[in-house]
């Protein structure tokens, strides 16, 4: 169950980012997860539900995009998606294959509730606030 420690780290990262933005809560955490990792999406979802308790992410949704493993031959450039078992030697020419994708464990974005009313004036408000105050 190493998904628990991964989920804890994700929640900590979201917490830090949300506080940076003075956000009230975290709404969505978007994660890209490769199939050539040892992390299981279902187990991570389960762990996330536990890890988020008592944090700004307590009501957040964890969106996991599964990134398939894609390998490419360094010589003939043929690319394939290994389905059953992993063989990183090119069937065509016998040279090593490089992994193009499938090793991802990456937070793509975090959506937070900033607590600000979304009024037609909000953009001007932001503009005003971002000016240095002397």
């Amino acid at each position, binding site marked *: *169950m*190493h998904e628990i*420690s*991964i989920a804890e780290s994700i929640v900590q990262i979201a917490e830090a980012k949300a506080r940076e933005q003075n956000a009230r809560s975290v709404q969505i955490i978007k994660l890209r997860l490769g199939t*050539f*990792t*040892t*992390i299981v999406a279902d187990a991570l979802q389960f762990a996330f539900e536990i890890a988020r308790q008592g944090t700004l992410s307590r009501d957040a949704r964890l969106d996991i995009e599964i990134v398939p493993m894609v390998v490419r031959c360094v010589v003939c450039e043929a690319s394939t998606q290994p389905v059953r*078992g*992993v*063989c*990183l*030697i090119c069937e065509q020419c016998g*040279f*090593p*294959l490089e*992994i193009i994708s499938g090793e991802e*464990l990456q937070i793509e974005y975090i959506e937070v509730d900033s607590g600000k009313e979304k009024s037609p004036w909000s953009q001007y408000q932001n503009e005003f606030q971002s000016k240095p105050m002397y």
Partner: protein
Amino acid sequence: MNLMSAPGAGKTTLLEATIKALQGKFRLAVIEGDLQTDLDAQRIQALGVRAYQITTGTTCHLDARMVARALDAFPVNDLDLLVIENVGNLICPASFDLGESLRVVVCSVAEGPEKPKKYPVMFNKANVVLINKIDLAEASGMDLKELTANVREVNPNATIFALSARTGEGMPVWTDWLQRAVAVHASVAMVSV
């Protein structure tokens, strides 16, 4: 160096043999990771080498935070090589980068030739694969060529050594390689500073 394997592949015995061969040639220390007990750290300390035991409780791997905490109590500034012996496990440790510059995976002949195919992530991430206990190859009915080919399938670039930490067969080739790797790493690190 992050040293990983399934439980019982012989990581600690290999480490003892490696230390005996390299003692005096460079300064090294060991961080041991286990769920329980400091038996492994005791084995390393018995050779006169500094060792620190991390007990993870129930956690199946070491992560960078555990190592960082260990380093607070275990200074490693004056070393040429820090070995981190991970928890015996071919799954979880593959996903946790400890900040190492060298990943070594040990696989013993008694584990069967299919191990690399069954645990491709772990074997794929190894820089070096050490096939241990070759003195038991015949008794285990292991064809070393088959095992080597299976390592190559999931990691065409791995450096592979076949050895027996217990009898010493094949050990000098590995320890010579490691000694050179440490020297090369030190010179590269010095240039980048």
